[in-house]
């Protein structure tokens, strides 16, 4: 089109191969990243029947596990573990707190079941007065660095409860509060019976 009287345009060259390779790697990397993010967003919750990675809960003083000031999931192999996420600012948590405590009372003596309260994004003074209000006696500790909640559910809301069997396999997920003691027991008892 335009006449170029003096300027000789550069010789026509395509994109060098190494640039092409870089571009495609970058593009596919980005798409891979999005795909991974999307998968995580689509399945935010840990799947039932998958093995739970190990984690440690530091415990509030007065709410220790057999006098230990922190408890590791792997130490609890052979026991059914109920992990309950709660917070003092969460209203629905209050509806299940008493039921959880009663359920705990029913298992405490035999020692085959461990309840772990994990206090999610909460402040200690408020958490303590909550636990006192509901006479909670099972081990409780803060979700330090929100690490534990991120293992179970990327978009955790409270309350949520995860029940893990003797082999460390996740067996049951409860989103929202339990409605009764019987409801909790109906999940745990079959696991104790080895089913």
């Amino acid at each position, binding site marked *: 089109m335009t006449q170029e009287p003096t300027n000789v*345009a550069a010789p*026509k*060259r395509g994109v060098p191969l190494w640039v092409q390779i870089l*571009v495609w790697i970058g*593009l596919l990397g980005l798409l891979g990243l999005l795909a991974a993010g*999307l998968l995580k*967003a*689509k399945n935010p919750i840990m799947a039932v029947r998958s093995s739970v990675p190990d984690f440690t809960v530091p415990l509030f003083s007065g709410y220790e596990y057999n006098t230990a000031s922190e408890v590791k999931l792997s130490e609890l192999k052979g026991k059914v573990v109920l992990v309950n996420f709660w917070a003092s600012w969460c209203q629905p948590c209050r509806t299940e707190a008493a039921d959880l405590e009663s359920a705990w009372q029913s298992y405490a003596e035999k020692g085959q079941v461990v309840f772990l309260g994990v206090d999610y994004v909460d402040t200690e003074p408020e958490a303590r007065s909550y636990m006192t209000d509901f006479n909670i006696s099972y081990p409780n500790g803060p979700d330090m660095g929100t690490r534990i909640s991120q293992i179970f559910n990327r978009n955790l809301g409270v309350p949520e409860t995860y029940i893990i069997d003797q082999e460390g396999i996740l067996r049951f997920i409860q989103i929202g509060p339990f409605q009764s003691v019987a409801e909790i027991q109906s999940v745990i008892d079959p696991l104790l019976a080895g089913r």
Partner: protein
Amino acid sequence: MLAQLGLGIFALTFLLALFSVGAAVAGYFSKSDRWVETARLAMLLTFPLITVGVATLIYLLVTGHYELQYVYSVTSNEMPFYLKITALWGGQAGSLVLWSWLMSAFASAVTLRKWERDRELLPWVIAVTSVTLAFFLALSIFYENPFARWWQTSGGDIVARMFAPAGALPLIPSDGQGLNPLLRHPGMIIHPPMLYLGFVAFVIPFAFAMAALVTGRSDDRWIRLTRRWTLVAWVFLSLGLVLGMRWAYDVLGWGGYWAWDPVEIAALMPWLTGTAFLHSVMIQEKRGMFKQWNMLLIILTYALVIFGTFLTRSGVLSSVHAFSESAIGPMFFVFIGVTFVTSVALLIYRWKDLKAEVEMHSLFSREALFLLNNLLFMGVLIVCFWGVIFPLISELVTGQKVTVGPPFYIRANGPLFGALLALMGIAPLSAWGRSTYKTLGRALWKPSIPTVIVPIVLAILGVRNWVALVGFTLVAFVIFVTLYEFWRAFRKSNLEITKRTQWIVIALLILVTIGFAAWALIDPANWLTPFVSMILTYFMVAIWMLARRNPRRYGGYLIHLSMVVMAIGILGMQVYQTTTQKTLAVGQNIQLAGYTLRYDSLAQFPYTDGRIVTRAVMSVYRGGQYLGNLYPRYDNYPDGQPVTIAGVRSTLSDDLYVVLVNWENVSEAQAPFKVYHNPLINWLWIGSLMFIFGFLVAAWPVSEKENDEGKNES
């Protein structure tokens, strides 16, 4: 029945869009005009069809068909009529419908034009727009159906489905949930459509670019054809962003307008590439350079439009603005992948055909400075993109979430924006081609003299903050350069205007003067505001007259001017915003930035639409002088978030912005207040009004007579 009709229409349109893609491609390869013509007619037919579909949805919204999930979730009985209409884009499903509708409207407008000389581009323009349209329609039909109904299954569950699940009974609620109260603000009513207009309009230049790549046309025809589309897209996107800022300022009660939230950034990113594109296409038009770069920019802009929509709607990111999670993520992902990979592959394939016709001569030429401008915009883009994407990477690699917040963006982008301001001053003085530092220096020294005085004056006035000193100096520099350019244009011009134009201008000036005089009389205490506005208006009319000679050039300068005026507001907020919070008993004071606010009373009362308003009365003093009352309040809707409406005293120099802190305990005896002092913020809004004016100047069609000169220059 109507719901089925609506969905049926969408399904039909979807098929039609797919058909038009097929017909267009077939027409191109078989070189059959008949097929292309068929594709064009199919494309044109989608618009009336979607319009009927949208009208159906609006009818259902307005008449309160709460048996539809979407209608239920965004409207309620007591909502006013206009809000029921705007509820069309109050939720995910409806806003996707709006997207499709706009896409179809723009695509139709483009296919309607005369194509004689560009016939070969037509099939691919149709194909690209139709594919995009089909994609958004598919989202509406398969994933986010706005016509889904409520059903009660035999198990007692309530589900939303298009067709009755086995044994289910229809459920008809008597009232809906109503629009999220935060979205009932006027800013929020027009903010989304503006953004969508901007997003969708950018699809048009992209479609032309793709058509040029496929057909192998290496000239700049595609850029010339879409010049106005690009400008329109860019302006709507900009306005969408500004309206969003205004909404945040008025409704969210943060005392600010921009929080570097991922969703905001998602809308900003296509703006960045779009702005870079707007500048660099000029180089291609004038000098035939950077063809490859322009292609890349428009591809990036399109990809970022889709990517931004994906980010905010797929649940990948969580944010205050994010739509609730939905199933559209995977489909979006596939679409982004396919379009991005295809367009980049096409560009690489055509790379060697897009070599420049002229080579760069000088580092000081205008094209070199434009390239520098592009580099800076890309820098801001990288910062934004990286900040948004990094938490995702961190979560995937370490399993831990991190926050990348405002300090990161401000620190990284601040210098880049500063450099952009400086360029905005220098570039208009440079020339195309062989500009040297000597010629540039010769053009620069005049506006530099008053610029040098600015920091000295500011320092004498007590400004010590170096960000403010540098920032305001740059702002002044751009203003002086722009005024200097207008002055030169004025000196050279022999303004020849028609009698008619002359009378219109005189009438307009008289009207404006009367209007502002009336304003000053009504509110004599604030006479300065109307006075300054009046001067500004005169100035604008004068500039309008001048700009007729070369609308694109002078419109562009006006847009520059509006940008630096906005920068004044942004600098004021960034550097000088102060805030304080205190719980007051009646009669107590709170002090900030020389103002004293006394808490007088608190009242709580219901409003007609069911919300309960809690409103405090504060009297404002400065230096012992009473300035007026402020009424910070918050509204509690029957269900939904409370809306905090700040009490604001606005002047040209500052805003006094008081929030009744509803997240602490509020009672008549003890009320917590958070007061912000926002210096210069109003220049941000004034700048955005000037921006609209600049756009009108740049895009207003010029009559042949007026345009004698402009044609040669534009």
